[in-house]
């Protein structure tokens, strides 16, 4: 079974530029999550999708971050404009359901450096 795929793996941009990350979840997984992991901290949930609907985006900085999952499969996370404090690893995860019995599977992450 193929795992969660993310691209790119690394990205360096200047502040005020825009950037987009892509995630392909495990086939058949209805639930998709985007996390931000700042160096020295644990992952923080940014947004959770159930199919193509948003379940929780309470910690997403909506003035600069946006995410979509139009067909309920792949997802993109965009930052526009980027700030220095957005430097982090962005992790995508998926699960076959939302309940605690459903394990979250994580992708390798995209490491973003904003200069």
């Amino acid at each position, binding site marked *: 079974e193929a*795992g969660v795929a993310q691209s790119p793996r690394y990205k360096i941009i200047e502040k005020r530029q825009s950037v987009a990350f892509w995630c392909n979840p495990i086939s058949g997984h209805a639930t998709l999550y985007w996390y931000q992991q700042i160096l020295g*901290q*644990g992952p923080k*949930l940014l947004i959770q999708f159930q199919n193509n609907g948003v379940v929780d985006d309470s910690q997403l900085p909506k003035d600069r971050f946006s995410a979509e999952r139009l067909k309920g499969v792949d997802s993109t996370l965009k930052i526009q404009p980027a700030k220095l404090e957005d430097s982090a690893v962005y*992790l995508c995860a998926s699960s076959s359901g*939302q309940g*605690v019995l459903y394990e*979250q599977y*994580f992708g390798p*992450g995209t490491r973003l450096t904003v200069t």
Partner: protein
Amino acid sequence: AQSVAQPEDQVNVAEGNPLTVKCTYSVSGNPYLFWYVQYSNRGLQFLLKYITGDNLVKGSYGFEAEFNKSQTSFHLKKPSALVSDSALYFCAVRSGAGSYQLTFGKGTKLSVIP
């Protein structure tokens, strides 16, 4: 609000010795508790979880964790450490009520010394 504390930034243990990585939590309602491991340059991997039932939970790679409700703790343990266990370990909690959100601790770096 729910939270997780991992009081040790780093734990060093000799190969073959038992290891413990500590975790305490705060949550409204019944806690659902998880341990994940992150190897260098790779995503998080699920180790084990406590949902209900037996307080001692067994997981992958010989790891286990003990849920202690009175101490609000969920420490990760392994009887005999391997060099290959060296990694970053994250404890996470989710409340049984309300949000599906998983809250992670800041992580503990485990180094197993040959």
